[in-house]
């Protein structure tokens, strides 16, 4: 199976996530789309590791670090959403304009 199969699937997943980030109004939905993007990147990392340098641990290590950062991002992002919901009674991204003006 050529490497390009994995890269194509990851590219499609990345673009779907990108569309979700651009188009969704709900902040939680935007965070879910970001998780899709990070997963697409991880597929790429692991596929390149397996096809190019299976004897090195660099590719796997990168994928683990992406996983860690994704977990941290989800925790902080969802805490922010809940905090904003509590203060503004809204989770719509375009209504989060506290820093405007």
């Amino acid at each position: 199976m050529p490497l390009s199969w994995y890269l194509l699937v990851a590219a499609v997943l990345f673009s779907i996530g990108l569309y979700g980030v651009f188009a969704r109004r709900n902040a939680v939905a935007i965070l879910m789309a970001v998780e899709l993007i990070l997963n697409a990147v991880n597929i790429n990392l692991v596929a390149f590791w397996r096809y190019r340098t299976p004897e090195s641990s660099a590719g796997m290590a990168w994928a683990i670090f992406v996983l860690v950062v994704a977990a941290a991002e989800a925790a902080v992002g969802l805490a922010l959403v809940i905090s904003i919901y509590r203060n503004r009674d809204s989770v719509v991204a375009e209504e989060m304009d506290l820093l405007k003006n």
Partner: protein
Amino acid sequence: MVEQIIFIIIAVLTIGSALVVVTNRNLFHAALALMVSFLGVAGFYVLLEAGFLAAAQLLVYIGAISILIIFAIMMTRRMMQTTEAPYNTQWGLGLIAAGLVLAILVFVVVGYWPLPPDASVYLQTRTQVSDAVIQNSVVELGKAFVSPDAYVLPFELASILLLGALVGAIVVAWPPQEEGEA
């Protein structure tokens, strides 16, 4: 041949549920589809013989992040009725931009640009490595994470990042204190 069929099944599952994630009006259904998508990615890791990453994907993404997202959806449920518009006014532009990114990525991956097709590394098939190398890769990864020659510094930084992020998340989500109560 079997591997290709499994790959295509997993790819259809992953991409199909990813589409549900970004299009479904009901956020809860979108979160469930996101879990299916994570499961598909774990399947890719198994196909790529990265068993440790597949297990980590199951634990961290399906076990932790999905549950966190579902909690957040339930806590903010009242605001997001399914009757409300799920997309902002610029979703058309977003679709065009995402389509353009996809077109560029496919162009690069298929190998017509910027490399000529015959110079492309993307068409290479997987080199067979022995089971010992695959099993050893987890051992090597564990050693690399604590080795001063490899990733001990990023590893410790990652733990500090996680600690900071989780403490920060608690502080941010803490209910506002009444005057005099603190």
